[in-house]
């Protein structure tokens, strides 16, 4: 069987699950690819890939695996058996063989799962189970010349090993995040109030009892407005320069915030290294595409919760000196740290998220400025854990 295609997909970063793979097997078993490679391609894609943004990656892997597959002899034998034998024409004897094959596959997967479970307990596992457990047991089924490769060839990293690594990733809360993770965290940023206008859909029990009593015991229901989130959010992103390596993560964070519809209001501005007289309205930070910081401080009331996102790493002068702004032609009368203090004074609830890991804050370039900023705003690392801690801080009364 072409199980190594499954592993190749995973090695190349496509997170195909065992369940999805078994679905594919089931589909092949039902003869859904109708003996054609093209149909097989679409079948694989429909069952295994769940986002159009990953189609491209899938195409590459598909091409890589089936590269040079032109003549029939180039394909793994089993694969052709799948393709050629449609359920409609498969005779009874063959079907039996197929069943036993599926059993073997199941057994293999069972073993695979067991090993993955083992791996979870032993963090040094990588080498252990590839070395000893590895291929010999896994390949024991013997129906695949290509087998599950472990070690040996370096065309791609050992599939089993990588599969193991992947398995960990979902469990680690502090790892790289996708938009959905961020969104889930942002949901906690809520403060409810019923002052906002809306349809009266919630039963008000106390009022209902009062009104019913006044109504001589005949039931009279009273409805009230449901409580809504009143949180207003001001987000300030450090953009450009030293933040480039983190741009993808910041973009995910931005996506999550802009897609959240439970906030009463969201304002997003950008700055370069530190906040001075202007806040940029686009991440490109160009002169002119901005608003005055003073205006923002004046217009956005103190109920806004402020989240700074930045690495906080800069030359000390950028933070503490007049004219410290590194952008040529922009002279700031007040040092950046004064501007930060103004934000602190205006907005009681403000935090700073740093994409750099907390353990590195003391040793990295810019550790001096980071520690100064930390004295003004509570600083958290930009991970799910950090974001959750930060949001807790924003919600403390």
């Amino acid at each position, binding site marked *: 069987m072409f199980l190594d295609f499954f592993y190749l997909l995973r090695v190349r970063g496509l*997170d195909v*699950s065992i*369940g*999805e793979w078994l*679905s594919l097997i*089931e*589909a092949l078993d*039902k*003869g*859904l690819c*109708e003996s054609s490679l093209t*149909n097989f391609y*679409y*079948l694989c*894609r*429909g*069952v295994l*890939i*769940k*986002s*159009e943004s990953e*189609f491209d990656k899938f195409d590459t892997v598909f091409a890589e695996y089936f590269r040079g597959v032109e003549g029939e002899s180039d394909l793994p034998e089993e694969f052709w058996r799948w393709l050629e034998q*449609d*359920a*409609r024409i498969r005779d009874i004897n063959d079907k039996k063989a197929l069943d036993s094959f599926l059993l073997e596959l199941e057994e293999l997967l069972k073993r695979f799962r067991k090993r993955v479970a083992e791996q979870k307990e032993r963090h040094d596992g990588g080498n252990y189970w590839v070395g000893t457990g590895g291929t010999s047991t896994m390949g024991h089924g013997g129906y695949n010349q290509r087998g599950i490769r472990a070690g040996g060839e370096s065309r791609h990293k050992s599939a089993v090993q990588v599969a193991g690594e992947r398995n960990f990733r979902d469990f680690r809360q502090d790892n790289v995040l*996708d*938009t*959905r993770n961020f*969104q*889930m965290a942002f*949901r906690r940023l809520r403060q409810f109030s019923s002052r906002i206008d809306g349809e009266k859909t919630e039963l008000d029990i106390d009022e209902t009892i009062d009104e019913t009593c006044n109504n001589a015991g*005949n*039931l009279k*229901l009273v409805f009230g407005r449901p409580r809504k989130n009143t949180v207003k959010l001001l987000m300030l992103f450090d953009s450009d320069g030293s933040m480039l390596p983190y741009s993808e993560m910041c973009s995910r964070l931005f996506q999550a915030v802009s*897609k959240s*519809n439970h906030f009463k209001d969201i304002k997003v501005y950008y700055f370069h290294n530190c906040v001075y007289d202007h806040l940029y309205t686009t991440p490109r930070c160009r002169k002119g595409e901005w608003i005055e910081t003073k205006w923002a401080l004046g217009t956005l009331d103190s109920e806004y919760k402020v989240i700074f996102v930045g690495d906080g790493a800069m030359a000390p002068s950028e933070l503490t000196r007049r004219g410290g702004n590194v952008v040529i032609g922009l002279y700031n009368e007040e040092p950046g740290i004064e501007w930060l203090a103004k934000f602190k004074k205006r907005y009681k609830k403000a935090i700073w998220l740093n994409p750099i890991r907390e353990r590195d804050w003391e040793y990295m370039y810019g550790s001096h400025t980071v520690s100064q900023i930390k004295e003004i705003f509570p600083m958290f690392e930009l991970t799910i854990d950090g974001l959750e801690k930060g949001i807790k801080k924003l919600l403390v009364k």
Partner: protein
Amino acid sequence: MANLMSTFKGSGSYVASKELMNAVNVSIALAKPLLIKGEPGTGKTMLAESIAVSLNKRLISWSIKSTTKAQEGLYVYDTVQRLYDSQFGEGDVGNIKKYIKLGKLGEAFTADEQTVLLIDEIDKADLEFPNDLLWELDRMEFYISETKETVKTKSRPIVIITSNAEKELPDAFLRRCIFHYIEFPDLKRMEEIVKVHYGDIDRRLLDQAMEAFYSIRAMKDIQKKPSTSELLDWLKALMLAGVDVDRIVSEIPLAGVLLKKNQDIDVMYEVKEKGYSLRRW
């Protein structure tokens, strides 16, 4: 198996690509929901209607809004009605069943024959919405706690789910679906689609309109690109207005039907005139 299941081959009023038909048939055969994504106006919702028509099954549509809860799709227990009835002594209040109203999902589950269930624009709902439906869609059953009844499907509905990608859907949910992305139709397929809707329309009018349409879609600065449904509306408008065919490409008459934003119309004319646009917003 393959010969036993009903296969979808498109319908008279809907042009489906071969891949799309395959995806539909795979999802029917594997009894998994089919998740459809694609640009607005590529006929995602129409697909379910077309499947229902071509397989001669009843279509049940559940349009999702931002306030839709998973529970509503299963059933709603009308407590208020029951309370009122008990006050005024109307009806049999002891019969709770009378106050259990099945939602769209419940309707599809309890139907005697197989139905086509369309869950339209699932991404409009709350983030947790898809997760709340996992079990029900997997097992095709749910429990009504008020009457202590389990509702099981008699014959598993064909489930079509559409999404505009406004929100990301949870992994666990995606893993249970078959996925298909409807690509924007190319010229040849577009002509087929037009033909299905308007029959044989004037060849020259069609050619000119298509040329204009694809040239507008190719303009980078247009914010909201016109889609199939807009092209169809436009063709109809052109025919009704009796516009001179030679003016179509050069002047883009009735541009408001194709482009829904003022800036887009301005940009389009500017690009047509100068070949570029400097407007930015």
